[in-house]
């Protein structure tokens, strides 16, 4: 019998597979494909204080081994999420969900986290200081250790649930930022968010994305994500949720060996709606082939 369970700051997950924020909505769209209770958990769409439409379209581009998105945090706002999405989610998802929170000021982060903290369906709060698709702040919080620490402190002051800070890969020194968050009281680190990328429609001589640049993710970014997970997991004592390019159960195992305590699946859900389910189902077989009995044993197992 293989044991796929993992633990994140006291939150026990049946398996480490967690669809990533922005690729799984509030869970609803995947119900038609499968029973999402098979998942470890999932991280809901980045939510802000006010409702947002996000950026102008087109806001999606093809990249061969990945995609660019410049959605820009379209979401109904924290109150609508609490009022409508969470009650609906409760009808078909029995597990604690991960609440992904974004903001444009330290106060907004704190406001949203305080509100979501009172929702018992929420098992963990993921604070996104790394979205490249918003103008006022957004990413800047995630590219500077002090700003990331400030957000962390503000959020920790108003929540009782474990707080993971989700970091941007578009930085010179990911370890410095992760350490700053850890020192400011973060319970865990989630990385990576998207790489800043761009494509041009050469027939029309203009960027594919209306906003010019956007967030690059998907299979292509896996080696960068794996490297950052490895660096941060070694440098910090708090758990790391790995994310970026994960497509298969073997990718999940590789991320965990690099140091991830749980692993998020993002863009893969969009192109294969069964991606996360197939990963969950393939894990025991891969574990057997690799002689892994307890999945949590391999977390950071490489020297």
């Amino acid at each position, binding site marked *: 019998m293989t044991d796929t369970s993992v633990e994140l700051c006291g939150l026990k997950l049946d398996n480490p597979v967690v669809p990533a924020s922005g690729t799984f909505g509030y869970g609803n769209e995947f119900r038609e494909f499968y029973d999402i209770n098979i998942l470890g958990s999932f991280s809901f769409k980045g939510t802000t204080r006010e409702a947002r439409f996000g950026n102008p379209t*087109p806001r999606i581009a093809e*990249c061969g081994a990945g995609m660019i*998105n410049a959605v820009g945090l379209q979401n109904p706002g924290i109150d609508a999420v609490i009022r409508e999405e969470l009650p609906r989610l409760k009808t078909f998802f029995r597990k604690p969900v991960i609440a992904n929170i974004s903001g444009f000021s330290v106060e907004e982060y704190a406001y949203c986290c305080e509100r979501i903290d009172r929702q018992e369906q929420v098992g963990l709060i993921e604070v996104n200081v790394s979205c490249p698709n918003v103008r006022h702040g957004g990413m800047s919080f995630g590219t500077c250790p002090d700003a990331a620490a400030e957000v962390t402190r503000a959020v920790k002051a108003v929540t009782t649930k474990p707080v993971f800070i989700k970091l941007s890969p578009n930085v010179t020194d990911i370890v410095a930022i992760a350490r700053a968050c850890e020192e400011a009281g973060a319970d865990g680190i989630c990385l990576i968010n998207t790489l800043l990328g761009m494509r041009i429609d050469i027939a029309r001589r203009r960027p594919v994305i209306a906003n010019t640049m956007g967030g690059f993710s*998907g299979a292509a970014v896996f080696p960068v994500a794996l490297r950052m997970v490895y660096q941060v997991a070694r440098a910090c004592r708090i758990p790391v949720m790995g994310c970026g390019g994960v497509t298969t159960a073997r990718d999940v195992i590789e991320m965990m060996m690099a140091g991830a305590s749980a692993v998020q699946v993002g863009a893969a859900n969009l*192109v294969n709606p069964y991606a996360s389910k197939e990963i969950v189902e393939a894990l025991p077989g891969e574990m057997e082939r690799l002689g892994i009995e307890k999945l949590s044993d391999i977390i950071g197992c490489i020297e």
Partner: protein
Amino acid sequence: MYKKGIYKILTNEPLTDAVWRMTLAGDTQWISAPGQFVNIALEGKYLRRPISICDYDDRSIALIYKVVGGGTEQMSRMLPGETLDLLTGLGNGFSTKNDARRPLLVGGGVGVPPLYNLAKKLLAEGKPVQVVLGFNTASEVFYEEEFRALGCEVAVSTVDGSRGVGGFVTTAIAERGLDFDYFYACGPLPMLHALYNAVEQDGQLSFEERMGCGFGACMGCSCKTKYGYKRICKEGPVLTKDEIIW
């Protein structure tokens, strides 16, 4: 309801220089309305490619696609017997639940295909169907005879006047003095906009947007309407005339 499935190519043949028709065998039970689309996974492309359903029956789907880039080029090289991974039943599609008596169908270029199954449905509901098909030039015209064979009244317009009425679909509508009380349209944005401005009648218009998922999960394809934000892939691609914000 939408589902993922593997479909076997039955036929794949060019209709014009750049436009191909492909028929596929497989489960069609999730398709519920004309104007819905499928989302096709292609080797070497990360994102799926959305293509409208031109026609379908219990066992097969017909698609008409224009070769505009790597993905559609790849489709054109596929042979009968090969398989494709499709999401089907995507989008709202056209609704015929309205009391229009004399509907007009207006299609431009590869906006024509989804109107074909719609025409079938309207005819089956006992309504006379008029169709205006707009193209750039005579060599690009396709499906004129197919609509006629269904029993539709068909007008063709070409921008360069090399076939049918010279000009846009709106020219054809005006010149023929077409009598209709409702319209259904699919085509390039400028055509939809011109039509919207040119006619008084109510109608439904089908839009395109670059898509991440095609089933409502990524928020990649949103647009603003008078009734709030809508996802082209889920609450669209068909919007009603009254809700559109240009």
